[in-house]
């Protein structure tokens, strides 16, 4: 374990680090304060001084959001294959094995059922540590099943997205997951069950351009990067400096693409209220 973990400055988009605080001390990229990592963990990885939201592991996210002991994982045994025999500097198969080792999970999303203040929900949480949360066939299938289960069980759906976009190593099959997930969501919407999308840092590319931006209600964590095209791609296209705060949650809220920015420690309470207001009405 590192004695001292330095986080890169938050305004440096290209080098933004995503690692979970791990050393004894962690430097906050928001305010440069040196934080006791234990205290940071107790505050759900939010800087107590400047409210910078560090990444939070999927297991801890589920603990934070759901009623204790209510999570029942689904589809944990779906695993990626290598349909194209893809190889760049590494084989896709090797990348998958390495990602499974690092993340301890089978792929880039965990899904299941749980309750929030008693209201049953079908939930998904992205695992960014797994190949940047990229969406290949497995992620697409698991997200689709979240919406299908929600429809079957007449429960609201809830997805916490954190993804670099579609997974290039599965080529056009990854692209098609955008259509598959959006189609499944369409069926849920037709019967009037709400879907709440929570955007974490970062939510970009093919995940943003499908179910993540299709929430009946869209929430985001403060300063989360939310984009279709990455800043570097845009900069290469227009050869201009990007406006300050471009593609951050606050920017999207200003432009009308988010309902609300919610502090991590308020998320469970906000979701509980929204589910009571929008969820299926109890039979009286």
């Amino acid at each position, binding site marked *: 374990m590192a004695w001292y973990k330095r986080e890169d400055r938050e305004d440096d988009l290209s080098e933004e680090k995503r690692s979970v605080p791990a050393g004894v001390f962690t430097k906050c990229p928001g305010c440069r304060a040196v934080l006791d990592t234990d205290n940071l963990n107790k505050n759900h990885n939010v800087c107590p001084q400047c409210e910078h939201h560090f990444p939070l592991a999927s297991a801890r996210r589920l603990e934070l959001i759901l009623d204790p002991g209510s999570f029942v994982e689904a589809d944990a045994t779906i*695993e*990626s294959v290598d349909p194209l025999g893809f190889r760049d500097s590494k084989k896709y198969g090797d990348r998958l094995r390495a990602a499974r080792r690092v993340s301890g999970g089978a792929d880039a999303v965990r899904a299941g059922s749980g309750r929030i203040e008693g209201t049953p929900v079908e939930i998904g949480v992205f695992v960014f540590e797994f190949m940047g949360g990229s969406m290949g066939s497995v992620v697409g299938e698991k997200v689709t099943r979240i919406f299908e289960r929600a429809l079957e069980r007449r429960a609201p759906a809830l997805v916490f997205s954190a993804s670099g976009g579609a997974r*290039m190593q599965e080529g056009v099959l*990854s692209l098609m997951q955008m259509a598959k997930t*959006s*189609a499944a969501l369409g*069926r849920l919407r037709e019967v009037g069950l709400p879907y709440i999308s929570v955007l974490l840092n970062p939510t970009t590319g093919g995940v943003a351009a499908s179910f993540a931006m299709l929430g009946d209600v869209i929430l985001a964590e403060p300063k989360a990067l939310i984009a279709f095209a990455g800043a570097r*791609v845009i900069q290469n296209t227009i050869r201009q400096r990007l406006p300050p705060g471009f593609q951050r949650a606050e920017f999207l809220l200003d432009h009308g693409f988010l309902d609300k920015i919610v502090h991590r420690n308020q998320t469970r309470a906000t979701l509980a209220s929204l589910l009571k207001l929008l969820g299926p009405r109890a039979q009286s």
Partner: protein
Amino acid sequence: MAQTAAPLVRAGDTPMLDFERPVVELERKIEELVRVSGGATELHPQIALLGARARELQQKIFAELTPWQKVQLSRHPARPYTLDYIERLVPDFIELHGDRRFADDPAVVGGFGTFAGMPVLVVGHQKGRSTKEKVQRNFGQPKPEGYRKAQRLMELAARTRRPILCLIDTQGAYPGVDAEERGQAEAIATSLEIMAGLPVPIVCAVIGEGGSGGALALGVANRILMLEYATYSVISPEGCASILWRDDGKKAEAAAAMKMTATDLLRLGVVDEVVPEAPGGAHRDHDLSARNLGEALRRHLAELLLMAPEALRNDRYQKFRHMGAFVESGDKAAPTPA
């Protein structure tokens, strides 16, 4: 992703790819010979022989095209674009404009006309031919208003029970500040959801470049056709190379690795049919390529017209529902190795 233009050799007015050069040069010689012979019959056997040789050479070159060469053909500047097909297949086409929210996007064209004896909606990406038109059409890269116009027209087609034909030809949705500000991601996502739920037949054809989400936003169809030298991928080969190889010079490797040609997509089960182009590529004969495309569209549409609205929605849902490749084991303790 910014893309470099295909390396073009310019001879006269015809833009030409480097691997097309041997054939085109031979054809020039034949034309020259025809011209100097001035109708004299003694040169006819020689001309016929050279003609046969040119066709043979073209067949040989085109039988061995690499994926990267197909990418270049899909972007060929003389390739027929959406309006070229519409002109030939839907002569009474009336273009309709605007998203009723912000603007009209010239990178997407849409309108109604008669195809195969019935009124249909045609929507497609549109690239420009001249420099001025290229700029006006933003190089065929739509902004959110382009997708919102498509949504508006498709919902109108659904209400009036008109089938929808979509022609896909874009390097991708526009990656720019204004497009992001107006919700490029939301616009594409909404198109996917809307198309999935429409109760009318939808047939799409990738006629050139099928670039990522910006292409798919017109591609949630009951049938997906692809021209012989069209490509369809999750990211451009240049983009893939710069991210995974950290070297955009590796675009040919990326094009091969991503399996983005029509035959690849047919094998992956994404595409229903590969439509033959004119020998040497669609740009060599716009009329023949349009006839081939028209025939295929007509055939698929005829099959879909027999289906009830709910069956069409279901058929489209199931088509995309089955896309993807994964393994699933019933036993948590024993994950199947990839």
